[in-house]
């Protein structure tokens, strides 16, 4: 048990369930049941990732997170029953790298854990990537010259149309494109009732790059206006 994941929740059954899922995937798991234990256990450098609940006795998850951040730089995923946008924003701003709402989807949980670990352990220097002309957006990095999209360092296979769409989005992070404009730029034709076509392609791209395609983190619909690639912070730190 050299490298392990620390799972913290005041409900032992939930810790157990998560441990089973993660161990099935081959990650060793350590357990803690309140914030103080979590802070203690995190001192061990063998802990490579922290999965922590917010509402716990003795010391709540966010306070524990603050204390741990003072000493260590490791990926942290917050797991909470609070599902409001404001709660997510609070968690992420306190230093969490990701936020998963309870009740969680086990596959999604595993995918997020894997994503975080890959980015922290196996990926090279993000800044070096940026210097080499790549566009980095959270888990994604895009090489405009070679038209290569990577998620967590893994090259994503895209069709020509998907690639054009990704190219448009990655070059214009955060910018909203109406479906007509996407159609015009990608297909080079005047658009007419193109919403479905564009949506079909976006859905496919999502399935390739998103951890949970039903609740996408990257390509988002701006309802009544268009579509955009959400801009994420330059993680990891």
């Amino acid at each position: 048990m050299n490298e392990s994941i620390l799972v913290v929740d005041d409900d032992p059954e939930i810790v157990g369930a998560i441990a089973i899922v993660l161990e099935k995937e081959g990650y060793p798991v350590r357990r803690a049941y309140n914030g103080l234990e979590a802070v203690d256990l995190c001192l061990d450098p063998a802990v490579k990732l922290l999965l922590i609940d917010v509402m716990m006795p003795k010391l709540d998850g966010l306070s524990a997170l603050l204390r741990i951040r003072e000493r260590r730089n490791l990926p942290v995923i917050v797991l909470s029953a609070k599902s409001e946008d404001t709660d997510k924003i609070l968690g992420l701003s306190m230093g969490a790298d990701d936020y998963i709402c309870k009740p969680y989807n086990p596959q999604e949980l595993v995918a997020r854990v894997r994503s975080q670990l890959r980015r922290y352990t196996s990926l090279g220097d993000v800044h070096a990537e940026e210097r080499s002309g790549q566009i980095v957006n959270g888990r994604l990095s895009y090489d405009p010259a070679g038209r290569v999209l990577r998620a967590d360092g893994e090259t994503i296979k895209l069709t020509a149309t998907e690639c054009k769409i990704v190219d448009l989005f990655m070059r214009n992070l955060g910018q909203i494109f109406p479906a007509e404009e996407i159609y015009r730029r990608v297909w080079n034709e005047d658009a007419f009732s193109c919403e479905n076509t564009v949506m079909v392609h976006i859905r496919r791209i999502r399935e390739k790059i998103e951890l949970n395609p039903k609740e996408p983190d990257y390509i988002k619909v701006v309802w009544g206006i268009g579509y955009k690639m959400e801009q994420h912070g330059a993680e990891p730190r």
Partner: protein
Amino acid sequence: MDTKWNNMEQNPGEALEYFVADRIRETLQEPGEARPGGRGKPVLAFLAFFLGVTLILQSLLAAGAQVLMERDLSPRFVSDWQETDLFREEISSCLRDFLTLGAGGQLDFYDNSYWLEFGPGDFYGTEVEEGTCIIQSEAVGEAASVFGVRPFGSVRKEAVDSGAAPKSQNENEPVPQSKPEVPPDASYQADKNVLYLIIGGEGENRRVYQNTTSSQAFFEQRTNGDYNFYLIFSNGKAQIWKDDVELDVYGSGYYDGDSQWFLPGYDNFPASEQLNGVYVYMAIRANPARYYSVDYQTGQQYFNSNMYYIAQRVNDSRQFYAHQAIWAGAGALLLCVAFALRKYKRLADAKIAVWTRRVWTEVRALILLGMLLLIFLPQSWQSLYWNWQDYWWRYVESGELWIGQLLYGIAAIMGSNFLLTLALIWFFWLLYNDHRYNPKGARRSLLRPFFRGLRAKDLKRPIEKRISRMGALCGLAVAMLELELIFFLVVCSVRYFSLPVWSLWTLFLLPLLIAAALVVRNALRQETIARDLGLLADQVEAVRAGNLSAPLKLPEDADLQTMADSLNDIQAGMKTALAEQTRSERMKVELVSNVSHDLKTPLTSILSYAELLRQEDLPPAAADYARIIDEKAQRLKGMVQDVFEISKAAADQLPVHLERLDLAKLLRQTLADLDGPIQRSALTFKVDLPAEPVMITADGKRLYRIFQNLIDNALRYALDGSRVYLTLTTSGEQADVSVRNTSRTELPEGVDFTARFVRGDASRSDGGSGLGLSIVRSFAEACGGRFRVETVADFFTAVVTFPLSR
């Protein structure tokens, strides 16, 4: 300052004190130097100002009046009394008498030549009526008998007449023996200021009159230095020396209004032939003394020194003007003192303004009227009436009224009443001072309610307008009646002064005053009630509009106090109820929030282990059970989330992020997003969306949830194989999105589908939570829209309406 003015309405007095205090502070500039407590200097400054102005004004008024009064006589500012018109007139008069004596009878040339040409009124500015200034022969004979009772001016003339005229009459009618012989120049004898020697007639008829012992004596005395004015009339011409310098008597030789001397000898006023051989020598003393004669029969004294009086008058006049100048100078000095102390004077002014503020406007008007009446009107109503008639006939009817005359009259009257005029001027100063230091609204008036009533249209509330108008009309009617009655009484007093008018006045006065007082009181009261009613109405409106924080405050003794109290109670009750409701609503949300959180934790375990269970290699039956557990737990998860959101929306605590968006595009996106389930269903979607943008302001994510739920609803409950119509229409200022479908099951009637946990199928055997449409309604309302459901038989229509955003 502004806030203080706002206070005015409640407490004008207090605000005024502030105002005055402010003014005082501004005036003093150096704070703390002279507090209002130090009275000496302000009093001194004001006294200096008052006395200075009074002295200057009184000198100006007195001098002005004097100037106007002496207009006829014009001795003003002439140091030498012999240079006055008065003197020349007297000389002229004497000469006329002397010539008459010399000619031995009536002279007709004054009548014939002069009067015909110039008519009455131009005799050195004196108004002379024909027949009075010329010596009348009718008076002859009787003159002596009335000698003792006539004032000396006429005595002299009549004495002359009685001496001059008797020639023809004495022959027919001998003079009664009882009467002593009176020389014709008797009235001139005593006055040695005028020495005269009159020679006329020939031979037997030669007449010599003189008031010296002899002709010799005349010429001796004339030259002894006392007499500096010398006149010789001979050969129809007059020559005059003054201080041994001969004067130019006739000027151009043609008599007109500007000629100095009214003497025979002009071209248009020649001496008549009667004067041939008449010589008159006159010498006038430079400094006249006072002479008098005594009637030894009656023992009366007659002062015959006209010249003395003229000289005295000129001297007096000079002294008078000198005194006035001294007074004015003293006044100016005092004004200088007042100027030096002007800071303190302003203090005093402000203090006076505080006193005068209390005086009602009507009282001011009455005082003003009274002063004007006292100054300008004669003493009694009757003489007023007659004077007015006289004035009317003389000036207005004859068309001789001219402004100068009018102004002269006014000035003369004011000058003669200068004490009252001074008082009037000071009264005006008080008014000005009051105007300067007192704010406009602070003035007190009895008539103000009426004026306010007449200005009713400025009031904002209809009820106030009506009441105010009613009061004003009533007051107006009473006021008119009273005025008419007073007018009637005045006319009675003036016209029929024999009637017992004063008892009429006393009879009517009391009821009149009572009626006036009642009307005023009524108007004030009505105004108060109208105002309170208006406030009450406003408050009712405010409470209706939801303002529960500010209670209505009426004065303690207001008639509507109980109503106001009741309204305040209602308001307070509503406030409490609302607070209670808000509190319970918040508690409900907290409860639901906590419950949903508490539900989520075990649900997480259930879902996790159900998932793990499904991954185990289980017997088919057990695997099926695990699947069911997983599915129901998933549904429970959805419901927990829905309940949480719906309760937040119901408590107005749903966060919404409003932005301008295209509703048509949003619907297309939603349809594209739900394309999979739609394609998989057995339904046909008939979509009718406008190509152009339909802009509204809403929260995109919530709108997506709305239409997702509506489409889900259709997919779940529509009859297989039927069509679902989704249309977006705009009408006027709003956009309507309707989703219409035919229900698979029979729709119950009278059910509110948008209520929570309501479903078309009461048995709840399907997969829905019953919260879908409820969420739609909550979210639509949170975004500023509306949602309604219509059912006709099995046809189900859901309509979402949003206002268009321009």
